[in-house]
């Protein structure tokens, strides 16, 4: 299968929202992280990133817990600056890790309605990335 960051970002985000609304915290959280990763990678490719791994799905090893900071240091010039402005300098996905997919659901236990102390900040951050992606699309970046 081929890489399509833009499409992947959208589907992960949509599914994350569905799970979040059903209080399925653990998997919602996983998907917010993946959605944000794909969204930022799409924009980076649009801004000229040449990732060696593109094309090969098995080689994607950089996730949002690292990518957030990389995006801030990557973007430059007039075109890149406006996207960086959206991202807080403190990576909200610092406590997210792809290996958490192996964690017990009870690790995400939360009584009652949102906000969820761990997942809700990730939801907000994923929404910001979604906005950046939309902005990049309306700017006509070639998102690959």
């Amino acid at each position, binding site marked *: 299968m081929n890489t399509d960051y833009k499409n992947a970002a959208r589907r992960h985000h949509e599914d994350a929202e569905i799970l979040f609304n059903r209080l399925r915290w653990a998997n919602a959280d996983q998907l917010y992280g993946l959605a944000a990763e794909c969204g930022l990678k799409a924009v980076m490719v649009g801004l000229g990133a040449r990732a060696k791994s593109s094309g090969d799905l098995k080689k994607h090893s950089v996730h949002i817990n690292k990518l957030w900071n990389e995006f*801030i240091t990557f973007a*430059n*010039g007039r075109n890149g600056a406006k996207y960086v402005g959206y991202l807080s300098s*403190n990576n909200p996905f610092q406590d997210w890790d792809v290996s958490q997919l192996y964690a017990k659901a009870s690790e995400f236990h939360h009584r009652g309605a949102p906000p969820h102390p761990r997942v809700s900040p990730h939801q907000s951050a994923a929404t910001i990335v979604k906005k950046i992606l939309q902005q990049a699309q309306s700017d006509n970046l070639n998102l690959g």
Partner: protein
Amino acid sequence: MIIRFQEALENAIQLVEQHYADLGGQPVLVRDLYGRIRIALPIEAPTDETTQHNDLATLFEQALGNFSPQSVFLYRDELFDSDAIFNSPDKINISETPRIDLLDRQITGQDWLRQPIASQTSIQRVTLFGIKGGVGRSTALAVWAWYLAQQGKRVLILDLDLESPGIGQTLLPESNAPNFGIIDWLVEEAVEQADESLLRELVGTSPLVSSGIGDIRIVPASGTQEKDYIAKLSRAYMDLSGADLAQRLSRLLQALEKQEKPDIVLLDSRAGMHDIAAITITRLNAYALLFALNTPQTWGAYRLLFQHWQRWHPNLAQFRDNLKIVAGMVPEIDRANYLESCRQSAYDLFADTLYEETSNDEGFNFDEKAIDAPHYPLKFYWHRAFQEFDPVSNREVFDENSVLEAYGTFLKEITNLVL
């Protein structure tokens, strides 16, 4: 204690030097758009949580204050596009031993430090620039163009003062003005329709020269069709994927040179430290005339720019020989003293920044009184006849006596220098 922008980098360099052996690889300091500094290392992320890197990160936080990022280290294997850091063409070497590089992310102004763009044409280009406005730059350009055309030269002028356009109107009456201008080329090129017909409709011929083989061809900022200039200007500086603004302007210039086959191209640059100026002075292989009034604010502003070049520029040698100061609108009274003071100020500027300290004749260094030195000013005089300069409606302004009085030596000297 608050750490300010400039202290942050100094502190970061110092820390990296002190702890170089603990880094595990050759560091690139990456300063982001906020000025926060990270250390990128071409190694795999250490697996041990208690490495020396954690200690160094703590020291970094203390030494950089708000310019310290949340995560100080970037490791090659944790980067999506590691080449964007380790192989970036904007990377500058700031220390040889130990080897430290800096990658300074900026929103604008990167062109001040980038390499000249190779050109397929070899036509002489001259940029006319003033760090401040009101120095008589555009009038001098018009008079020089007229002079060159009188001598049988084909002169091509580009109005790159897009925020304050003028040379087009100065030299072209409405009836001679082309339909389009540079601003149109920039927005049309962004959607891939800057074709040959557009290029032909960018250029108008000035009626100021009506005989002989010489002529003045002008590419104004906007054309006669203009209805929405600001809407275009607000899009003009877009970097396209694969071509930034400098490369786009170089492309335009080469296409025009091919079409027009001029003997010389004069670029009217925007004043001040703007990207257009950075491009026209350092990246288009042009001879650069730096206009100046002999005022502290003029030399102070040039100094800010020259210090930046001196501190960071990896390719200074590729354009520093092309710089030349021009003393503009030299006052009528006490000319000799004015010019001497001007020369001294210009010398101090160059000696403190770009000139190299050498004990012999090698290296970039000049005597204060060396006429061919970049600091030694060309000059033209203030003259009543060239105020409210409007040669299209008042051709008599090119009266031979007035031109010679105000611009005589300037015209001769600059023409000898570049042609």
